[in-house]
């Protein structure tokens, strides 16, 4: 019996010839992503660096695991609290003293996008990140999952984690993708099919004839949403498109792995993209294009295409927060930022932004390109958040209510 991409990466990282779902492995990590918030004293009075130093002292060593494999990003710029700022200074100190790579200022943005754009994510790698949306990286054919604060300290010291190899769900994508369907529409449709407890602690593996036509940005968005189905990870095959993308952002070598034809899946689902429609429904107060889920260059292009020559509905606050400064500058070059300004959408710096900060009053409704609509996530507990693709968000901002974006796309 063959193995899946995820099983092969787990086996290689654990120094084994093969693993099966349910096996407990001790895996060696290729890359660790840490967002600045983990260095603040929010979760532990010592902060990540303080705890790490304490572990080293107790272990009787001075040097950590491989600092070349540690990437840190400042997800909030400028810091809006003393605690956050102290965390960012601690992250910089760690980076100076241990040699980790740190992104800030115009090199930064939202960490998950920075990781991808700066070439830290490659096919075949075993990556963990100190943020739940670290599953995003699976779009490039690697194993990637989120870990907690305590485990991050452990990885910094040892470069290893314990993990139970997950069973896999194979999601076959077939048919021709309509022009108005993007990754977000596809993944929301799939999640609806999974149901409330759909993919808990499993691998979602995408495949099928339609994959080649799905952009890297859309794949990143689809893998970003894996944790919202409670999956451990999601992965796309490292096809020509993925490899071409990685070669563009990195000179470093990598070894892609593919699932064997006789790999075993716990279940299989099939979706025909030609049947899919954008997710729609309600009057809105706020429209948000941002987050590590959907504010990459593809998303900004789609939104600008809809907003061009139009104005955001007077009853709606529209906020556009690019995914990284890479995306921000690219959008500026293409004239997209001017389109946002002219349409009265409020453009912000690249950061996590209102995904995690209060911006909704009681009873308000928001359409968001983000990934989470938990109660209280974006402000008052009585506010409602609907999720859709950037096209759905932009069209709804113009209409003042959630609408089908197809009518708003220039033909």
């Amino acid at each position, binding site marked *: 019996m063959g193995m899946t991409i995820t099983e092969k990466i787990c086996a290689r990282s654990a120094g084994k010839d093969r693993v099966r779902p349910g096996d407990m492995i001790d895996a060696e990590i290729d890359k660790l992503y840490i967002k600045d918030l983990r260095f603040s004293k*929010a979760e532990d009075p010592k902060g990540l660096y303080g705890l790490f130093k304490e572990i080293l002292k107790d272990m*009787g060593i001075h040097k950590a695991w491989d600092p070349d494999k540690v990437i840190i990003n400042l997800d909030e710029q400028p810091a809006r609290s003393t605690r956050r700022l102290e965390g960012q200074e601690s992250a910089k100190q760690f980076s100076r003293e241990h040699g980790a790579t740190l992104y800030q200022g115009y090199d930064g943005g939202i960490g998950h996008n920075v990781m991808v754009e700066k070439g830290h994510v490659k096919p075949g790698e075993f990556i963990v990140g100190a943020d739940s949306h670290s599953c995003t990286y699976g779009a490039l054919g690697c194993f990637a999952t*989120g870990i*907690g604060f305590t485990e991050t300290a452990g990885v910094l010291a040892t470069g290893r984690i314990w993990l139970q190899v997950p069973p896999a769900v194979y999601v076959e994508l077939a048919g021709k993708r309509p022009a108005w369907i993007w990754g977000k529409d596809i993944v929301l449709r799939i999640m609806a099919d999974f149901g409330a*407890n759909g993919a*808990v602690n499993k691998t979602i593996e995408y495949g099928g004839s339609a994959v080649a036509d799905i952009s890297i940005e859309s794949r990143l968005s689809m893998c970003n949403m894996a944790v919202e189905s409670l999956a451990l990870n999601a992965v796309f095959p490292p096809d020509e498109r993925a490899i071409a993308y990685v070669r563009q952002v990195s000179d470093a070598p990598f070894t892609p792995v593919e699932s064997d034809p006789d790999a075993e899946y716990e279940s299989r689902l099939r979706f025909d993209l030609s049947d899919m429609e954008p997710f729609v429904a309600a009057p809105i107060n706020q429209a948000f294009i941002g987050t590590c889920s959907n504010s990459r260059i593809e998303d900004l292009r789609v939104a600008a295409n809809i907003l061009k020559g139009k104005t955001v509905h007077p009853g709606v606050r529209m906020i556009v927060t690019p995914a990284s400064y890479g995306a921000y500058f690219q959008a500026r070059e293409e004239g997209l930022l001017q389109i946002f300004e002219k349409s009265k959408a409020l453009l912000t710096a690249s950061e996590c932004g209102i995904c995690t900060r209060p911006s909704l009053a009681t009873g308000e409704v928001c359409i968001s390109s983000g990934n989470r609509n938990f109660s209280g996530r974006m402000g008052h507990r009585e506010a409602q958040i609907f999720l859709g693709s950037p096209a759905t968000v932009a069209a709804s901002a113009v209409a003042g209510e959630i609408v089908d974006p197809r009518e708003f796309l220039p033909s």
Partner: protein
Amino acid sequence: MKKKFTGRVWKFGDCIDSGNIKGVMEGIDPEFHAKVRPGDVIVAGINFGMGSSAEEAPRSLRDAGIAAILAESISNIYLRTLINLGLPAIECAGISAIVAEGDELEVDLESGGVRNLTNGNARAFAPFSDHAIAILEKGGLIPYLKSSFAKDR
């Protein structure tokens, strides 16, 4: 940490995300922190701890002295984090159906069994791996790493 213990049940529903668990279940019951006693057990439905990896939420449960969390399903990051903090997190299908708030539960981590001492019903769960037991016995990943490295040297 004891491998076998009893505790009084507090029962919660499905899909409780980590943002609402923060502050000892503050998002669900703002008074819960005052009602819960060390050694109590939380029983929840599906997808317990979904969402953010921020560790304030699981730490608040540990700091309140919760002895164990049993749920129909638990998000992976949350389950790992709880164990790494030294608090047994147990996925146990059918647990909600056999308990009511205030019942007394007996949990055996090694054999993978839970028994409701109030009504006599029982359920089984996958026994904990030796590795997870070792981490729990040391009180979490950090003390486990400290002691295992000290031993290696």
